[in-house]
């Protein structure tokens, strides 16, 4: 099977006044053609850095230490400016996290989404607007023709996120990268969006990479799941592997904390105790050691091995599992 996207051994650091923050360390990830891959992890685990790296829009204090991000066998990180611009918004479309600030505040939505279609030379202005109207209908924006001439602040947060998804879908991309695409939406809207994304996957043969902390989203939509913690991938597998046979203690803890899978009535939602380690000086052993319930002496001293659980499709890094 071909991969739409392949990330090999990616490490990215941030230069800050108080030292170098090792935001991503040796991340490996594959997004197969036509599949949906979910990246799950709590805030600060490096999800957003990964996303910025995929479209080569890292902030200027980021340093790529090593690794490659391959799209059609070309490394995105060393791509020419010209090729990059074709990549962005044509091959890879993105939906960003914060719907309130996604759009330019002083231009109408119509102007912006028309602009975003600049790659489609065969569409004239009227056709571009028509496309937007179609997409808006698809994502459930009432009275789309009128709303094209409105400014972003005249829409609710949920509507803006739907428009952001519509903008990405307009491109008919090979890969759609969505950063927390449903966080700002209410439950019914969320279901609609998930349905939309699945439909897109089926109709267009496009791959989707979804970054989220919401396990429900990945369960609904994804074929593969990557669990990230503190800048590292700790477990990877199919959706069944992760939900029914979780191996890494962090994955297990994450699943236990999801309110949707709670089996008993409880006064307090369960949490994972402790905090993410300081990424300026990550621990020599396992990054999860300080919060792990099964921690042993070995965990704090040596880096955990990769444990293959099913022919390279499902693996995790853990001393405990390797025993």
């Amino acid at each position: 099977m071909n991969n739409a996207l392949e990330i090999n051994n990616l490490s990215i650091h941030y230069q800050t006044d108080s030292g170098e923050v090792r935001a991503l360390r040796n991340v490996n990830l594959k997004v197969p053609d036509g599949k949906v891959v979910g990246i799950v992890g709590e805030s600060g685990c490096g999800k957003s850095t990964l996303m910025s790296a995929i479209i080569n829009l890292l902030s200027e204090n980021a340093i790529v230490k090593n690794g490659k991000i391959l799209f059609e066998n070309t490394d995105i990180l060393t791509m020419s400016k010209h090729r990059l611009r074709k990549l962005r918004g044509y091959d890879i479309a993105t939906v960003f996290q914060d719907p309130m600030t996604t759009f330019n505040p002083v231009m109408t939505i119509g102007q912006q989404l028309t602009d975003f279609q600049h790659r489609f030379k065969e569409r004239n202005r009227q056709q571009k607007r028509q496309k937007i109207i179609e997409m808006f209908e698809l994502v459930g924006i009432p009275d789309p023709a009128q709303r094209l001439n409105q400014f972003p602040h005249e829409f609710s947060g949920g509507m803006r996120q739907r428009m952001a998804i519509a903008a990405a879908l307009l491109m008919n991309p090979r890969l759609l990268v969505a950063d927390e695409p449903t966080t700002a939406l209410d439950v019914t809207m969320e279901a609609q969006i998930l349905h939309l994304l699945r439909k897109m996957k089926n109709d267009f043969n496009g791959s989707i990479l979804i970054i989220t902390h919401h396990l429900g989203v990945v369960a609904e939509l994804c074929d593969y799941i990557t669990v990230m913690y503190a800048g590292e991938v700790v477990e990877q597998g199919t959706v069944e592997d992760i939900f029914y046979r979780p191996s890494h203690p962090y994955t297990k803890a994450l699943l236990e904390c999801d309110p949707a899978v709670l089996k008993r009535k409880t006064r307090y939602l369960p949490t994972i105790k402790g905090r993410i380690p300081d990424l300026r000086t990550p621990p020599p052993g396992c990054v999860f050691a300080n919060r792990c319930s099964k921690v042993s002496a070995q965990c704090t001293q040596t880096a955990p091995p990769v444990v293959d659980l099913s022919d390279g499709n499902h693996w995790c890094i853990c001393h405990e599992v390797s025993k």
Partner: protein
Amino acid sequence: MLNYAFKRVMLGILILLFTMMVMYVAVYLIPGDPAAVALGPRATPEMKADLLARMGLDQPIYIQFSSFIVNILHGDLGLDVWSNREVSAIISETMPNTMILAFASIGWALALGIPLGCFSVIYRNSFVDRIIGILSVSFIAIPSFVVAIFVLLIFAVQLRWLPAIGAGEEGDILSQARALILPAFAIGLGWVGYLARMVRASMLEVMGEQHIRTARAFGLSETRVVFRYALAISLIPVISLIAVGMGGIISGSVFAEIIFARPGIGNLTYNAVTSRNYPVVMGAVMVTTVFYVSITVMADLLMAYTDPRVRDVLK
């Protein structure tokens, strides 16, 4: 919005009134006998009394000030001490010349400074950015009156390309435009630097915003992102800067008008200062202050109006 506009206008009026009062009191408190100072040591008592009466200085200060304000509201700025003409007439004759000069200066500065700032951002931290930066700082640092003297020396006196003095023949647009080039260049040069820097700084701030990332993520070129997506927002703070800078433009005009012997409010004030023509000085300073304060008030209102976010908050 209306409420905000009202507050802003009231503050402007308050500042104007305050400035007027201080100036009036200052003139009143001139050490020594103003008439004697103005007329010189050989003045006869009759001449002094006549002058004092003409200046209205023979009455108690509060009456003088209130009648002064009442007169201003009627458009009466008093009489020129020497020629006995109405100060308001003299000012309205000369004001257009100064306005043309000021707008020409700011106009070419905008036309060059804004693109320079944008190119600085497009090629940020590169050689181009550095050169534009150094040029901008130098333009700001060099006093406009020195620029005026030097361009006068080079282009009018040595090369004889452009006229050295005056504002051009009356009714002849071409000759007026030619007379405008050197002074407008001198006044505007510093502003090119200011605007380039301001646009750069303000735009770099905007470039950090999320919607710029969206535009880039859709493959728009850096030039397009800068000129179409960032520029409009970056110019909002620049509007108020231009308004505040009008003060500097007026100061520049004073020098340029004197150096190029152009009729205008600056030249008028200068001649009035050297001949101690108080009513003219008062009138000219007041008119420029009114002009300046109303420009800053308008800029604040415009700024509130251009930003759709602010506009909605203020509604």
